[in-house]
């Protein structure tokens, strides 16, 4: 029987599922965002942007769930192989990763809310997502477009650092830091 909750040394499957789901969608959103603004066909571009908005709101929902779950479930401690520097920087990096997960979708939501194009948002054509109560203007649209763009590049750089750190643990330090984000806690550790 695998545990849904974290233990002091292992992750429960809820955290593992949210981690990979959010990670995959996050990277997919980066690629989609990059492609959608470089697509020659205005129709395809429009449709890709709507898809990007849909996945953005899905991501925001998953992230809210993940933050709530994380607040109620302490992360497992670092293994003994982790050095003093890592013990200080890893929590900061993880906090930054959470901050970007929250800030990126919110900045996208702000962008569509202030856009003078006034295009409605319907995640996966299921329901109308209201705009944030912000004043629309070309200047505000330019600001949030830049903010969303910079956050995306900084966020993906942070993800790259996170992936490099996980690979270092797995292949150089040969500890279970990566493995424990794949195999859930049995509940007995």
């Amino acid at each position, binding site marked *: 029987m695998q545990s849904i909750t974290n233990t002091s040394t292992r992750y429960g499957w809820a955290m593992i599922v949210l981690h990979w789901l959010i990670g995959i969608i996050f990277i997919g959103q980066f690629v989609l965002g990059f492609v959608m603004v470089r697509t020659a066909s205005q129709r395809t571009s429009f449709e890709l942007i*709507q898809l990007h908005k849909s996945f953005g709101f899905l991501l925001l929902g998953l992230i809210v769930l993940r933050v709530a779950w994380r607040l109620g479930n302490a992360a497992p401690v670092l293994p003994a192989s982790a050095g003093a520097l890592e013990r200080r920087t890893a929590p900061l990096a993880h906090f930054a990763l959470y901050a970007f997960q929250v800030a990126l979708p919110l900045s996208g939501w702000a962008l569509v809310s202030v856009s003078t*194009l006034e295009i*409605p948002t319907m995640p996966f*054509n299921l329901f*109308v997502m209201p705009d944030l109560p912000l004043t629309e203007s070309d200047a505000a649209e330019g600001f949030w477009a830049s903010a969303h763009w910079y956050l995306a590049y900084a966020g993906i750089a942070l993800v790259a650092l996170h992936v490099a750190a996980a690979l270092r643990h797995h292949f150089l330090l040969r500890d279970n830091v990566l493995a424990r984000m794949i195999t859930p806690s049995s509940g007995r550790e």
Partner: protein
Amino acid sequence: MHARILGLAAFAACLVMPVYAAVALSDAAGSYTISPSGSSIRFSIGKAGGGGFDGAFGRFKGTIRIDNGDVGRSKVDLTIYPESVGTGQGRIDAFLRSDAVFDAANNPEIQFRSTSVTRTGDTTALVTGRLTARGKTFPEKFTAELGGLKGGTIKFHVTGKVLRSRYGMDVGTPLYSNVVDFDMTLMGKRG
């Protein structure tokens, strides 16, 4: 369709209509050229969550021929240049002109050719015809109401709904309604 309306007016006159009693079919009969000044072709599309956006075509041409003896034989031809679309938002205009919607570069004209004009009231008529846009043609109906006949000038208020998906312009549904509401004022000058 305008012709149709005129016919209506003529009938109305026979029936001692108070407003258009002065308009007799024989007075209205003839050929009119749609005058850009005094005419407008506006449209609006509803949006999910309320509201919508409005636009207008700045350039168009056409003729209205009102048959003296038989209103049903009246004709309306209208050509709209989609390149002239305007919504007040340049980015939306560019999108509408692009191959996402009108593909104005390859399809520079939207055409309406009436096939029948049927009187529906004292000053109203139903104009049926064939609308061609982006190489696709479908029958469409518009309601025309006679707004006035003065000297050599005749005026109609024309409304109708068109489903844009049939013309390969379904982009943005269901965020934006498939139904395009047209609201036109067509002023014709005799000759």
